[in-house]
């Protein structure tokens, strides 16, 4: 007991608090922009897909290929490749601000695919019934497809958020800040096992909370 207390007292808690805040900031901002970009991209993928409402094989092929390229790129490579763009966008490639653009670029295609899948899960009959009332494509999307696919989209966003937590930790390696950064600088480079364990526990708690919140929302919006 005393040993544990000693260990806990030796830790620099304000530093950990700041790192947690950084991680939450990165996560929140990246998730926001990912949803903002990924949702329309997912809808585009769905609508232009084979035998779907707009059925544009050329557009679908091009967007699908771009998405696959970004998804097959290891995140660490993307981080480095993105540095010039990131500097242009945020003025820095370091810290929380510098981490956000690569995070968004990495997770947007991922989330877009999850949105596409969620939309495909919607019964074709529902689209048909909407069209039979005279609805336009826009009305079908906003009045039927998105509301029907909402639980699936939220589940996708939850998975994306958890993936983002892992990525924020990785972006610590190139000075992204946050808990991952702390774990690398103190835990790994200075052999502070205590800091390492605490950051890992905090990341675990974060993932757990995200999953629980996501599940609860999915349940709240499911009417099946």
């Amino acid at each position, binding site marked *: 007991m005393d040993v544990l207390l000693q260990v806990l007292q030796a830790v620099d808690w304000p530093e950990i608090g700041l790192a947690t805040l950084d991680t939450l900031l990165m996560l929140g901002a990246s998730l926001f922009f990912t949803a903002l970009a990924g949702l329309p991209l997912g809808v585009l993928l769905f609508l232009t897909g084979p035998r779907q409402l707009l059925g544009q094989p050329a557009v679908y092929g091009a967007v699908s290929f771009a998405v696959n390229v970004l998804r097959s790129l290891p995140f660490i490579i993307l981080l480095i490749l993105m540095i010039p763009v990131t500097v242009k966008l945020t003025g820095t490639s370091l810290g929380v601000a510098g981490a956000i653009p690569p995070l968004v670029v990495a997770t947007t295609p991922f989330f877009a695919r999850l949105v596409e899948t969620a939309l495909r899960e919607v019964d074709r009959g*529902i689209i*048909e*019934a909407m069209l039979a009332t005279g609805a336009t494509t826009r009305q079908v999307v906003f009045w039927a497809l998105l509301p029907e696919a909402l639980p699936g989209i939220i589940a996708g966003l939850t998975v994306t958020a958890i993936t983002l937590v892992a990525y924020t930790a990785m972006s610590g390696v190139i000075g992204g800040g946050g808990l991952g950064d702390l774990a690398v600088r103190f835990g790994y480079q200075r052999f502070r096992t205590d800091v390492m364990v605490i950051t890992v526990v905090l990341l675990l708690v974060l993932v757990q909370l995200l999953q629980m919140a996501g599940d609860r929302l999915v349940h709240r919006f499911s*009417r099946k």
Partner: protein
Amino acid sequence: MIRLQGVGKTYHVGSREIAALREVNLEIARGEVFGIIGHSGAGKSTLIRLLNRLEKATTGRIELDGEDLTAMDDTQLRSLRLRVGMIFQHFNLLGSRTVAQNVAIPLRVAGVRDAAAITRRVAELLDLVGLADQGDKYPSQLSGGQKQRVGIARALANDPKVLLCDEATSALDPQTTRSVLDLLLRINEQLGLTIVLITHEMDVVRAICDHVAVLDDGVIVEQGPVSQVFLHPAHPTTRHFVQEAEDLDEGEEREDFARVDGCVVRLSYLGEHVYAPMLAEVARDQGVDFCILSGRVERIKRTPCGQLTLALSGSDASIRGALAQLSGGGVHVDVLRAAPGTQGVN
């Protein structure tokens, strides 16, 4: 009201061509209930989906109120769909929306913005289909029959002239089927709505249709008034549907015939004739005896009709006389087996 001329539909799947419909000619009158019956894969859904252009005909012409559907642009198409409602086998309701919100969708599509007007109209429609107090429920909380009623309310929201029913009762149990069919018949009569329905069950056709077309492998093989098609099926597919509905079995029938003497005839009659004591009269007048091998008296839509298979015995002359008297009295006579020595009379 609806006219199809030389309509064909071919699907292209990869390099394969599937002719789902060939040379379809149909005429559907205003205010009638028109049934299209066929086995699974016959092309029923394809045919009905041509009528609101969910599917585009490959060849031929489709007219609704004189307008050519095959030439419509997107704007005309949307206005067409406001005038043509549709219901589906699996209801296709939005699970994420309440009953009232589902019914409101076509109104919003039609551009109704006034929330009070929407609420009023939705209440009216739910009342019409017998779901007055269910507006706040979600579809998952309803039974199959109730879901189809919501589908009907949704389809009627913009006061369409035509209602298309794609196997609307095929997912329902017999009792619920009956109540949904009754509702369809009621709105057909109350609102003067033309109904086109497709089904694979002859019972559905018999219950509410005025005319029926039999679709077999993309081709209409027989069509006419339901009583006509039902009592005198000409095409093997039609006969199959009728036998299925009547639980008839040709083998059993032949067995029956082997055990009786004399002339075997099938009598078909409609309407008032059902209530006339004709058989006894004829037997008395002509001096023939009869034995009933099988028979049914039922209703086609609201018209009573009967069909009896009899073995008649007596002298040749008396049998001829009996058949003539029956024919003269408005009974349709088919001689299934002539008695030895007599010629078949029709």
